[in-house]
């Protein structure tokens, strides 16, 4: 039964067509290593500066950057050709500019990080905050203290792209393909008029549901694994290798404010796990709607609306408190993962701050259990009218 249920899903040509289209899009997508990073000049400087940064090193980088900037300014003043806004720089200068400006930026992150800790220290004293706010500040401060000083100069571009893929393209591609692939799982039995045959069989009311869920999970696993393997392969092809995966997560631009003590590699593994869990939860939602609506197309659009609307709210920047709650506790946010880890967010639960990722994952665990129950319940009690 399981084999045939898989066969029903995996023989749908539209899924392969959509998947290939997305892969093609990923292949032709611009991006990759900027040419200067590939040069020997940059690599020499990079090796020289790579690693955790001391205040002296940051000051030195700032000084060198200023000198370089002054030299460029002078050259600009001396040039007679008014059409040339930026005079041509040597490879050495470009490489140096890139390295020093990166180090200088990291210096600013470190300053902000220290400032944040001081602000939190102040908040924990509770002179201007409520008891809950103090508790929340204490939690964040503890997390930041545990981090130590996470910033350094590393080449994390490849990891940055790989991790960001989860947040943007994997979210879109997986969602579309899961909704597209699973919408007909129950609905098609009605449109093909095979439901009467199935439901009158021994296992047609309960085991069939388990089998269809398992087949759907198989589809999700195949899709998920294939998509992420293709992405990693494409990133490796662009950058040569995924370097500096063992450095703290805060060295990725998207996560400079993250309070979580994770390496990039650890975060990637966790993010994949959460996105996989989200894919399963979305899969269950689609299966449930497929039973209720008895129509594949309707399931596709309702699922799309349920998942896409909060994402749209976020993209449009709608910041009403209720909408924000809806957005934060949406399928889309779970699927994108980034929002769970890129900054400190906690919610009060019995007057105690609970971390957003913990609360969101717990919520969706309950949602998954409830959806599973509803799937069995709804299917078992469904009556065939036509």
């Amino acid at each position, binding site marked *: *039964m399981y084999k*045939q249920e898989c*066969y*029903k899903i995996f*023989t749908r040509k539209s899924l392969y067509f959509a998947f290939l289209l997305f892969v093609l899009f990923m292949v032709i997508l611009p991006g990759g290593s900027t040419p200067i990073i590939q040069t020997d000049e940059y690599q020499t400087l990079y090796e020289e500066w790579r690693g955790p940064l001391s205040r002296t090193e940051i000051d030195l980088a700032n000084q060198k950057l200023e000198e370089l900037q002054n030299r460029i300014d002078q050259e600009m003043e001396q040039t007679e050709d008014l059409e040339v806004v930026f005079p041509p720089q040597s490879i050495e200068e470009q490489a140096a500019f890139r390295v020093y400006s990166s180090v200088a930026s990291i210096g600013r992150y470190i300053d902000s990080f220290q400032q944040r800790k001081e602000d939190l220290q102040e908040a924990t004293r509770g002179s201007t905050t409520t008891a809950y706010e103090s508790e929340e500040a204490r939690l964040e401060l503890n997390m930041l203290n545990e981090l130590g000083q996470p910033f350094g100069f590393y080449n994390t571009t490849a990891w940055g792209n790989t991790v960001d893929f989860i947040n943007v393209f994997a979210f879109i591609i997986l969602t579309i393909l899961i909704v597209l692939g699973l919408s007909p799982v129950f609905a098609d039995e009605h*449109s*093909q*008029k*095979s*439901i*009467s*045959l*199935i*439901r*009158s*069989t*021994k*296992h*047609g*009311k*309960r*085991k*069939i549901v388990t089998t269809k869920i398992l087949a759907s999970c198989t589809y999700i696993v195949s899709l998920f694994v294939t998509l992420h393997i293709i992405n990693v392969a494409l990133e490796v092809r662009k950058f040569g290798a995924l370097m500096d995966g063992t450095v703290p997560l805060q060295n990725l631009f998207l996560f400079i404010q993250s309070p979580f003590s994770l390496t990039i590699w650890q975060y990637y593994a966790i993010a994949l796990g959460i996105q996989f869990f989200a894919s399963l939860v979305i899969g269950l939602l689609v299966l449930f709607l497929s039973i209720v609506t008895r129509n594949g197309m309707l399931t596709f659009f309702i699922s799309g609306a349920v998942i896409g609307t909060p994402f749209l709210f976020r993209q449009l920047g709608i910041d009403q408190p209720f909408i924000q709650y809806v957005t934060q506790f949406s399928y889309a946010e779970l699927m994108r993962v980034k929002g769970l880890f890129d900054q400190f967010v906690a919610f009060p639960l019995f007057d105690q701050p609970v971390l957003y990722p913990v609360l969101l994952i717990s919520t969706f665990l309950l949602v998954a259990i409830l959806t599973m129950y509803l799937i069995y319940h709804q299917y078992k009690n469904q*009556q*065939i*009218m036509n």
Partner: protein
Amino acid sequence: MRLTIEKISKTFKDKQAVTTFSAELTEGVYALLGPNGAGKTTLMRMLADIMKPSSGRILLDDKDISLMGDHYRDILGYLPQEFGLYKNFNAIRFLSYFASLKGLDKEKAKTRVEEVLKLVNLQKDRKRKLRTYSGGMKRRLGIAQALLNDPKILIVDEPTAGLDPQERVRFRNLLSEIAGDRIVLLSTHIVTDIEYIAKEVLLMRQGELIQRSTIEKLLESVEEKVWKCSVEQGALSQLQKSYKVGNIQRAESGIEIRIVSDVKPMPNALSVSPTLEDVYLYFFEKEAEENV
């Protein structure tokens, strides 16, 4: 084995599809006869456990089938009036799928699939994609699927619709062969399908059981009520308005017609032996006219 239908009713919003239907069925073939909209399909769906009665209950050997669940469906074979097949599947894949749904183990399923394919004469086409099947072949595959688990209760809704005469005879004989130790309930419009095999006929109209009898008794009930006579073309329409007119056949002497009537319709009318078609006409004349 005893299947008891105990005062079951089914209501859809504002329509009463089945009204306090009661019957007790034991081993043998039962024919459910009635015009379109009589509630046959709804009754069969309730018996197939895919629809719940609004009231009443169905018992198998005194056990409520809604409580028996899997155990009831384990001994059930059902062929609905309308059903679809998976276009990408071939007959073997389709039947193997249903064999697993019916709880047959792999080895038994393999043997049984071959057996039922042979029963419905589809062995040669067993590897063809179902999208290439004709209507009759699909029907035969449906019958094969209903027989897969060697059901003790077989419910078939219009099983011979779309079958050619040869296949219809083949199916009739098949039902006759297997009916000895099981309950078979079949609905049909084609009365010749049940003429020789039905143990009893259940006549349904507007959701109600109006008559339950053996074929012999049904035929007896219209004895001396079936007439054959020759008429001229001009008189035909007047006769059709006044009597239940069955077969109309052109002959050298004019038109030979069959009339079902309590009284002799014409002086030259001859009383003839009734058939099940005459019985149908006698009980459902109004509906038969509407269907025409």
